[in-house]
């Protein structure tokens, strides 16, 4: 067997605390990243890049964001769509009003605005928990979306209310708006994904990640070791909203090419929540697996009958899709609350002993 954990001795704590402790894992992740940067734009078709990889990557960022809040810090949120909308609208506003600002700066800045909004809506979390907090974040969802639709200032008084994404370039290559090439958009989004995923892993293994998990697991004991509940929860809200804001900005500017409220409604919030439930709460890998799974499932279901030579009416497929979706969510909640990421881990543990039972 090529892949093995045995015999990889660590002689320092920093080696033991590295992000990927197994040599082959490290090579695999480096290889995958290199392939995503170089191989995919060369090999994959326009359709796969533009209609599958770009949205999956953007939703992965949103799932990472929600996972920080819900998976790591244990604060249930249904306001993901609203925080994404905040990122999208403010990115549009900043990009069109401060035209000299490079687009790679506009998007994090929009994320910071979303973070500020997230902090405001996270304030009730000190007093309320669980389902009640979810309802409070639901208020954010409806209020913010209403605000963006009703106040024409956010869209520069555009008459349609759905302005097209402003075209912006990096190194002379257009990366946002309808006219931009899919490869350029993909690489632009990928850059954000790589940086944000790396930061998420770093936070998870540092003091801040442990304080989130401590609040999630046992808030009384967390206070006892010196964790202050409010700043810790608010930091999770801020960082989560930052991720969601960046995802929303990218979604509007690089995927749907316009800033529209319907892209960020309550369904989006639920979609991202399903992603982290199916993918795995409190896992960076799970955010990616969940995003890919939830986004690809309808596409696979749509085209699967065609592969076997059947033709099923498209509305029948939609119904089947809904049913399968419901079944899968319930399946995951019952069988493996920690999602795909945990299944992957269990598979690895089993393989470690294979072919012996223990």
């Amino acid at each position: 067997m090529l892949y093995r954990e045995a015999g990889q001795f660590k002689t320092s704590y920093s080696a033991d605390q590295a992000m990927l402790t197994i040599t082959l894992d490290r090579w695999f992740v480096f290889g995958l990243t290199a392939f995503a940067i170089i191989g995919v734009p060369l090999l994959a078709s326009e359709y796969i890049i533009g209609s599958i990889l770009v949205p999956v990557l953007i939703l992965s960022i949103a799932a990472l964001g929600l996972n920080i809040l819900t998976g790591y810090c244990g604060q249930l949120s249904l306001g993901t769509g609203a925080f994404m909308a905040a990122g999208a609208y403010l990115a549009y506003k900043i990009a069109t009003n401060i035209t000299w600002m490079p687009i790679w700066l506009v998007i994090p800045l929009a994320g910071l605005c979303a973070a500020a909004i997230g902090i405001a809506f996270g304030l009730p979390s000190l007093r309320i928990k669980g389902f009640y907090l979810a309802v409070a974040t639901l208020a954010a969802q409806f209020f913010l979306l209403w605000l963006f639709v009703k106040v024409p200032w956010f869209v520069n008084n555009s008459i349609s209310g759905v302005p097209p994404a402003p075209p912006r370039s990096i190194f002379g290559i257009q990366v946002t708006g309808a006219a931009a090439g899919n490869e350029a958009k993909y690489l632009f989004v990928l850059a954000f994904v790589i940086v944000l995923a790396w930061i998420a892993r770093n936070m998870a293994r540092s003091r801040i990640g442990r304080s989130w998990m401590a609040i999630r697991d046992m808030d009384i004991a967390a206070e006892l070791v010196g964790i202050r509940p409010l700043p810790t929860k608010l930091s999770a809200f801020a960082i989560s909203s930052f991720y969601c804001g960046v995802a929303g900005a990218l979604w509007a500017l690089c995927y749907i090419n316009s800033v529209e409220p319907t892209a960020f409604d309550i369904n989006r919030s639920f979609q991202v929540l399903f992603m982290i439930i199916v993918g795995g709460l409190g896992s960076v890998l799970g955010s990616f697996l969940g995003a890919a799974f939830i986004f690809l499932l309808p596409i696979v279901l749509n085209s699967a009958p065609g592969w076997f030579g059947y033709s099923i009416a498209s509305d029948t497929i939609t119904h089947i899709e809904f049913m399968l979706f419901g079944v899968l969510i319930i399946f995951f909640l019952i069988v493996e609350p920690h999602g795909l990421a945990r299944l992957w881990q269990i598979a690895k543990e089993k393989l470690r002993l294979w072919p012996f039972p223990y």
Partner: protein
Amino acid sequence: MTRPGNILLGVKDISLRFGGVRALTDVSFDIHEGEIFAIIGPNGAGKSSMLNCINGFYHPQEGTITFRGQQRRRMRPYEAAAQGISRTFQNIALFRGMTTLENVMTGRMLKMQASFVEQALYLGRGKREEVAHREKVEEVIDFLEIQSIRKTPVGRLPYGLQKRVELARALAAEPELLLLDEPMAGMNVEEKEDMCRFVLSTNHELGTTIALIEHDMGVVMDLSDRVVVLDYGKKLAEGTPDEIRGNQEVIDAYLGVSHD
């Protein structure tokens, strides 16, 4: 074998009420530096309430608590932690989703100073600190002999080991005063002996002052330098284990008095 030291924590005339229920009434005692101090009493005597007052979960209506000679204002538990008071719980309060190592690392929370950016990028102080505190945590792990379960999620550990991990988390903070709420509850003899050994070596080798609540009288009498007895929220007696053992009131409180 009372070792006279300075008063570390002084409790004076503490009264705590929940509505009409008087949990504690005018309780006073001192905990000296370097001693093992036991709080005993029948169920519902107010022992856990006393610990909760000391580390800031409850705020007594009357009375004062002085720590290291300074009278304390009303404070939250994380402020008590910052002053050097650690604690374990009667019902294990570990972070179940985390490994032993991560649990013990949270104990050092207050000693870490890396900024958010340094942590997010895992550079500079962010990384140095993780490694430096890992070394300290490993010392605690060695001390309590839990090396083999370092990377195990604590939810999977047996009860006795979970108690030990909780002690490790409290010790990782290098507390001046360690509060143990029934550290031996629900343990078999072997586990109890181990735990006693750890409590004693914490006291002797690390010099930590310990206040513990325990129901196992054998353990209390063997371990502690001084004992205070509570009953119905009032202080019944205070003294060395021998004095307590001979105190008629204490015997009555535990065994009940016949009223005929």
